[in-house]
Every structure is written in structure tokens, then in C-alpha cells.
């Protein structure tokens, strides 16, 4: 726990007077995939946006590699190797696929030549993009856009990857590709925090998970424990 790559302690945040997160603590280690589960409105996106620095925390602390980064803005956290792929993917629809990929390397301040190498590697890993580099990102299908978001993450090579509902609204074959990518990130040693409504799917890839309800963690455990938990089965997996 001391060497957790991402550690969130008693985090509180919200919008104006509306407090959404009421003290959330969690952690993700290197080479670990952690699922963040919960129904719509449980506070998953708020937690991820606060962790990424887009929303200011009202209380609590945030650590990256054991260093306190509480209150740092998103652009600084990105430079420290934390990447959030937000709901809606955070692409730039008016820009080309290629420029979107190049922006993935912005936080790393790569020289032009190295950036070109990283972009080429990402395009090779996600061949669906290779023939579409000069197209507007907004012209891609939903699945292709999600692949672009993942390919951009490939260029960014983050130490902590935070994915907000990456499989929502996608056709099954794309969902499959998303989870293959998540496994790759684990093998590469990144810390992956994965918010999902689709619990069954998320728990097949995750090592551990947290269940968020009304802005609080109500349950945590290994993927197997969560899958076996009667409360989870009843509430989320449609089991009896």
C-alpha cells in the first residue's frame, strides 16, 4: 500500500454546494487493474475527474508514487504521467486523427522525431486508424473513436491510466478490443483505474474493485470476492 502508484485518501468533491464524493479512499498499484463500479450517479465520473485535477477537491489528499499532488491542476498531473480518458473520450473532433495522436505526446514534451516514432507505433498497434490518419476525428465511428483514444494513450504512455466507461455504447467487438488494451497496459506495468457500469465485464479483467454508492465506497475486494459477493450479485449482476 505504501508503494501504491495512485493513492486517494478521504477525497471529497462536488459541484458548488452539491457534495458528490463524501470521503473516498482507494489505491492502484503498478501493474494492477482496479475496477471502479457503481450505478449511474454514484459518483464514478466525479471521482475520476477529481483525481485527474479537472475538479478541485474540497477535502482529502491525492498521491502519485507516494508524492502528494493534492490540488495540482490537470495539466500538471498529465505531465506527471496521469492520463484520464474521460467519458466522451476527450478527442478533438475538428482535428485530424494524426493530430489527435500527436497531442497524446504533448505532456511528454517529446522532440518531433521521437513523437513521430511513437505516433507510428500507436498507429501500427491500432491498425483501424492507420488508413484514416488524415481524416477528421469526428468522422470516425464510435468504436474507431475509442480506438483513437486508446491509441492516443499509447503515445502518452502514462504511468497511471484512468478510463471512464471506455466500453459504454460500443458494439461487442470493440468492447473486446478495449479490454484487450487494458490487459496490455497492465502487462506494461501501468496502474489502471477503470470505471465501468458493466460490472461483469469489468471484473473479468480487473484484479481488484471498489463499489461506489452515493459518493462512498461501500464494498471493496478482489475481483473474485466481488463476483462472489451476494450483495454485488443482487444489486448489479442480476443474480438471485
Amino acid at each position, binding site marked *: 500500500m505504501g508503494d501504491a502508484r495512485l493513492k486517494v485518501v478521504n477525497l471529497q468533491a462536488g459541484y458548488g454546494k452539491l457534495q458528490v464524493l463524501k470521503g473516498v479512499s482507494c489505491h492502484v498499484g503498478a501493474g494492477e487493474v482496479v475496477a471502479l463500479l457503481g450505478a449511474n450517479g454514484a459518483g464514478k465520473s466525479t471521482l475520476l475527474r477529481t483525481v*485527474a*485535477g*479537472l475538479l478541485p477537491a474540497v477535502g482529502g489528499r491525492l498521491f502519485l508514487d507516494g508524492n502528494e499532488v493534492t490540488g495540482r*491542476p*490537470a*495539466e500538471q498531473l*498529465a*505531465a506527471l504521467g496521469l*492520463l*484520464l480518458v*474521460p467519458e466522451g473520450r*476527450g*478527442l*478533438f*473532433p*475538428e*482535428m485530424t486523427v494524426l*493530430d489527435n495522436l*500527436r*497531442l*497524446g505526446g*504533448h*505532456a*511528454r514534451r517529446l522532440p*518531433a522525431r521521437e513523437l513521430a516514432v511513437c505516433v507510428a507505433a500507436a498507429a501500427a498497434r491500432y491498425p483501424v486508424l492507420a488508413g484514416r490518419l488524415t481524416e477528421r476525428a469526428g468522422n470516425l465511428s464510435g468504436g474507431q473513436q475509442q480506438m483513437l483514444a486508446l491509441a492516443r494513450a499509447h503515445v*502518452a504512455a502514462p504511468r497511471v491510466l484512468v478510463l471512464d466507461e471506455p466500453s459504454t455504447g460500443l458494439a461487442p467487438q470493440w468492447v473486446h478490443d478495449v479490454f484487450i488494451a487494458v490487459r496490455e497496459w497492465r502487462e506494461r506495468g501501468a496502474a489502471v483505474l477503470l470505471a465501468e457500469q458493466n460490472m461483469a465485464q469489468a471484473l473479468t479483467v480487473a484484479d481488484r474493485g471498489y463499489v461506489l454508492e452515493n459518493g462512498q465506497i461501500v464494498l471493496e475486494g478482489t475481483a473474485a470476492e466481488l463476483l462472489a459477493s451476494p450483495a454485488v450479485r443482487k444489486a448489479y449482476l442480476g443474480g438471485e
Partner: protein
Amino acid sequence: MTWGIAILLLVKGLAVGGIYALISLGFNVIQRTTGILNFAQGEFVMVGGLGAAWLWGGVGLPVAVAMPGGAVLAAGVGWVSYQAALRPAGGTSLTTRIIITIGLSIVLRAAAALVWGTDPRQLPPLAEGGLTLPGGAVLDWQSLAVLAAVAACMPALAWFFRCTATGRAMQACAGDPDAARLCGIRPDRVAAQAFTLSAFLAGMAGVLLTPMLSMSFDRGSMLGLKGFAAAILGGVGHPVAGVVGGLALGILEQFACWGSSVYKDTLALAAVLVLLLIRPRGLLVR
């Protein structure tokens, strides 16, 4: 009106319109990246023109150095303006920051009057002589030179936005500020770059305008208004539309001058008013 004169007015209109287009591009760069409607844009134009005239007539530099020098000076003023006036107000509402730019325009005007005096200053023409058109009208090389300079700016600007990391960061900030921050792009830095680039474009416009019309400390607001009118004519938020709007406005003015030059400025503003009434999104947008 003979064909010769029509061609003359058209080319002159394109030249002046190209200058308006530069001002409107500057408006766009700041508006799209920061949301701020910059009321000091015309003052950047004035600083560019007066600065170049001062470098040439006051300091004694050759014209070829003084003219780019004026644009660079304007760019510097743009950067300082952002750092001194707008960056400290980063957390305030957009309206507050827009009003700050009104204050900024007053300060810049007064500073220019103090530093450079209130008399108009001149720059030598870009080129002497002209081309005699059929019908006897003379098209001066000056207008063609301005047109060529403006035409060279557009692809350079397109290259900047497409092929440099700074240009891509500015585009990203314009498209989705939050998503840009997640890519590690610093909004305050991009805003400073936007003010610098925008003031550079405005300064170019001022430098190109001064040999045609001379420049004085108080001409900024009307020029800013012309650039703004160009942006509105084409459609706010669309750089290409602003260029088309600028060219249209320039041509409109020249042909109106042929009737009576008294109504030149009135016409520009009337065109904007009419357009806002019938096509509030601009000529080219949807």
C-alpha cells in the same frame, strides 16, 4: 465606371480587405482559444503601424527592418498585455476579462500618445509607381504588394496551426479546453501565445496600412471595429469566414468610396447591422 476603374477598386478593396482579414484573424485566435472578445485588438494594429513608423523615422532603421520590427513590437505588447492585465484575472468571469480588454485599449492608446506623440506618422510606400489599366486608371504597386503580403500570411498561418506543437495546442484549447488540459496543455500558456500571435497579426495589419493611410495613436478603435465587422460578416469563430468577411468589407468600402468617401465607415457598420439582423451567424456559417 469603366472596367479599368472597376478592376482598380476591386484590387484596392482586396488589399484593404486583406488587412481587415488579418485583424479579424487576430480576433479569432484570441476568441477561440480563450473565449475573450479582445477590444484592444485595434490598439495592437496601431502599435504595429506607429512602432514601425517610429523605428523607421525616429530610430532610423531601414524600412525592411522597421516593418517586421513593428509587427514584432506589437507581438511583444500583446504578450505583456496578457501577462499584466489578463493573467492576474484568470479566475474571474469572462465578462470581467472582456471589460479588462476595454481598459487595456484605453491604456495602450494613452501610452502610445505619450511615447510617440499625437501627430500622425508615416512609412514610405512599399513600392513606387503603378500599372496603367485600360481606361487610364493607375493601379499602384503598393496595393498589389499589400495583397501579396496578406496572401503570404494565410498559408503561413495555416502551416503554423497544422504543423507546430504550439499551433496544435492552440487548436486543442479552442476545441475543448478540458480535454486539452488532460493532454498536458497549459491554458494560461496557450492564452499568452494566442495574445502574442494575435497582436503580431494585428501589428502586420498596422504595418501594411501605414504607408497607405498613415497612422496615429487614436486610429486603433476604428480599425479594430473594421476587423470585428469582418469577423461578424464572415461568421464569428471561423477563421476562413473572417478572411472572406474582411475581403468583402474591403471591396464594399472601395466601391462605396467611389460614390462618396464620407460614407466609408458608416457603410461598414451598416453592413454589420443589417447582417446581424438577417443572418446573425454570418454570411458563411450555415
